């Protein structure tokens, strides 16, 4: 570890905190339906969209209607992606002549993109046409991100409102989120990325003759426009197989730094939106503090582990684990990126997690298994974190023997049950499918590494898909019938069975009366609250996943120190 390394980490944190408040202010205005500086340009387009699609923007929806609207929207999104992938061979924008994508891979990828997972069983440049990348993947990057954000906003409204039956209008929220938040940032971001060297072309793959006379086919494409939303929307599905490690998908140290910022940008701002909507910004800062504590702990472990390297490297007199990392990023920017991308549910990678040290790779795995609530996926992180807050408040209530309250709302049996239901989805899918995979020959055959590392590959795959992360221990051959179908079920359940209970909480909270704080109210803006929530998260995650981690990365670390290879 070096001083310059830590300075990069600190600079990252400072910029995120500095951007949280102004962006939170702007997003609050957007979701309250107020005017913004972009309204003169975008308001006519917005009104036109409502007119043509028959949306009454004044009419709000009950939480059930809101959720059904969201689900209908995703059915359509699924059909578009699946259709385009199956038909890409006969559709335009296919200069490389890619054939139709297989049924099970198309199914897996369509589920993967509507759930904001963006698990890559496909290899972008070797499988997908430009049209699939744009209409199939880029558009769903926008819409699944917008969906995550508006669901978080609906849950926040549940806390903020009192005695109301509605939580907002899904169509209006999605349209405003796309037009006012995602698109403007992406336009600027795309141009910045191209200025760093990222291609943005519809031209054919380039045939080069290298200095030594060999032929090299260089894949290009409309990369920057997709990468912008891929990062900002914490989608993470790569244009290229190597994702953000590919020099075209992440050309410079600066493009890397800004991409890391963009992963956390909207998720961090949502904590401020929460604070503003419930009437006390300190409530938002307290939640960001919980995220910050867990984040920095993870960064420290991964950075330390990667900088130390492995016994194999030490035996040869080498330090620093550079296997599967790029020179322009080095150890620190690779470690930081890995922790950010798994803390949020982004899943883009600028280094191969499969080649991380046992402990360095365990932190990304833990981040995902805790539910990606450390800033988290855009929106999903916020509503995931609020579920843990409900549990923490419940625990605090048990200790002092009072009905727990949070930001003026009584937390009662229904909310706690729904929060538990949502959180229990994680172990059910992750541990359940991992157990099935390791006893079936077809599951074991896909492992690339032997020994405990092979088990970690499987555990990571189902953690990543259930958590809608999308990063991978990529040695695992995921593009098989078994992994495509079980993975799709993990992604689907991990996304939607978490959303429905969260929305039920939103609806129940919105109907409750707001009660003013009293002497007996547990303060939720101080260090005690932050510590309590961190504790609940770690205990829940620890009790649930520690046995599985012991079989994977922990035993691998011990084996490595004992000098074993597999």
């Amino acid at each position: 570890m070096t001083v310059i390394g830590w300075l990069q980490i600190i600079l990252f944190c400072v910029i995120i905190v500095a951007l949280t408040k102004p962006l939170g202010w702007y997003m609050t205005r957007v979701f309250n339906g107020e005017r913004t500086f972009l309204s003169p340009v975008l308001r006519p387009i917005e009104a036109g969209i409502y007119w043509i699609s028959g949306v009454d923007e004044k009419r709000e929806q009950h939480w059930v209607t809101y959720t059904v609207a969201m689900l209908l929207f995703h059915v359509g999104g699924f059909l578009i992606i699946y259709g385009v992938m199956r038909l890409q061979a006969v559709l335009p924008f296919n200069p490389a002549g890619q054939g139709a994508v297989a049924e099970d891979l198309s199914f897996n990828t369509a589920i993967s993109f509507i759930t904001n997972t963006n698990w890559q069983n496909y290899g972008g440049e070797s499988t997908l046409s430009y049209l699939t990348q744009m209409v199939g993947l880029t558009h769903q990057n926008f819409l699944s991100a917008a969906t995550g954000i508006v669901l978080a906003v609906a849950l926040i409204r549940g806390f903020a409102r009192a005695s109301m039956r509605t939580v907002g209008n899904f169509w209006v929220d999605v349209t405003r989120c796309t037009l006012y938040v995602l698109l403007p940032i992406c336009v600027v971001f795309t141009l910045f990325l191209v200025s760093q060297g990222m291609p943005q072309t519809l031209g054919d793959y380039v045939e080069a003759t290298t200095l030594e006379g060999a032929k090299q086919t260089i894949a290009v494409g409309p990369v920057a426009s997709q990468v912008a939303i891929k990062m900002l929307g914490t989608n993470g599905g790569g244009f290229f197989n190597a994702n953000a490690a590919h020099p075209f998908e992440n050309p410079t140290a600066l493009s890397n730094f800004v991409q890391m910022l963009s992963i956390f940008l909207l998720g961090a701002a949502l904590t401020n939106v929460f604070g503003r909507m419930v009437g006390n910004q300190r409530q938002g800062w307290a939640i960001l503090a919980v995220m910050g504590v867990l984040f920095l702990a993870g960064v420290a472990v991964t950075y330390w582990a990667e900088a130390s390297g492995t016994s194999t490297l030490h035996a040869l007199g080498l330090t620093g684990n550079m296997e599967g990392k790029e020179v322009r990023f080095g150890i620190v920017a690779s470690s930081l990126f890995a922790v950010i991308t798994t803390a949020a549910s982004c899943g883009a990678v600028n280094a191969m997690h499969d080649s991380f040290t046992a402990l360095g790779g365990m932190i990304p795995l833990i981040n995902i298994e805790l539910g990606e609530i450390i800033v988290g996926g855009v929106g999903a992180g916020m509503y995931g974190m609020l579920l843990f807050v409900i549990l923490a408040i419940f625990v605090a209530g048990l200790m002092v023997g009072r009905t727990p309250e949070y930001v003026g709302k009584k937390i009662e049996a229904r909310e706690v049950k729904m929060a538990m239901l949502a959180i229990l989805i994680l172990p059910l899918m992750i541990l359940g499918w991992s157990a099935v995979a390791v006893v079936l020959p077809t599951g074991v055959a896909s492992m690339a590494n032997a020994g405990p590392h092979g088990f970690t590959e499987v555990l990571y795959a189902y953690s990543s898909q259930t958590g809608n992360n999308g990063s991978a221990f990529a040695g695992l051959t995921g593009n098989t019938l078994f992994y495509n179908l079980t993975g799709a079920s993990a992604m689907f359940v991990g996304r939607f069975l978490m959303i429905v209970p969260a929305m039920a909480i939103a609806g129940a909270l919105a109907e409750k009366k707001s009660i003013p704080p009293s002497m007996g109210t547990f303060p939720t803006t101080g260090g005690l609250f932050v510590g309590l929530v961190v504790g609940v998260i770690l205990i829940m995650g620890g009790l649930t996943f520690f046995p599985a981690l012991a079989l994977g990365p922990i035993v691998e670390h011990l084996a490595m120190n004992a000098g074993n290879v597999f």
Partner: protein
Amino acid sequence: MLREIRPAIVLLLVLTAITGLAYPLAMTGIAGALFPAKAQGSLIEKDGKVVGSALIGQEFKDDKYFHGRPSATLAPDPNDSTKTVSAPYNAANSGGSNLGPTSKALADRLKEDVDKLKGENPNAAVPVDLVTTSASGLDPDISPEAAEFQIPRVAKARNMPEEAVKQLVASNIQGRLLGLLGEPRVNVLALNLALDRVAAK
């Protein structure tokens, strides 16, 4: 509920058209106008022919060139399309080795490569990036130490004084951005092109 069907279809199609077609196509037009060379992939031409991209590494095996990092990229086996074969620096199929920290295959490969490099330059410590594969398999860069390690071999193969090669390496080192972000590095293709230019004089 029925009145949600129309927006579910129409709004989806409208937003798909905006975000899936209008946005990427408009960005392609604007980016192409503002940054024409970069939008095409930062291609390098020599004598009118494309020799590569400034951002994409390529394979160098000749002693007179600086070598990049080992690459784990694959290509379909020409004899059996269900299998793959090693194809270093395949820029149409990026990827890493994905070998884990306790992989025997990785340990064996590292030992073999370190021994080979020690034979080439016994006087310097082997830089770690010169024996580890990159994440993309297309890493265009090596560390300054990895370039310096190769100076004796390149100078000997080209009959150049080591000092001259050393100066060329030094002038091709890119530092951290603002002294802070990223790592110091040397672009292998740029360095080799510079070598060829010097040799041609």
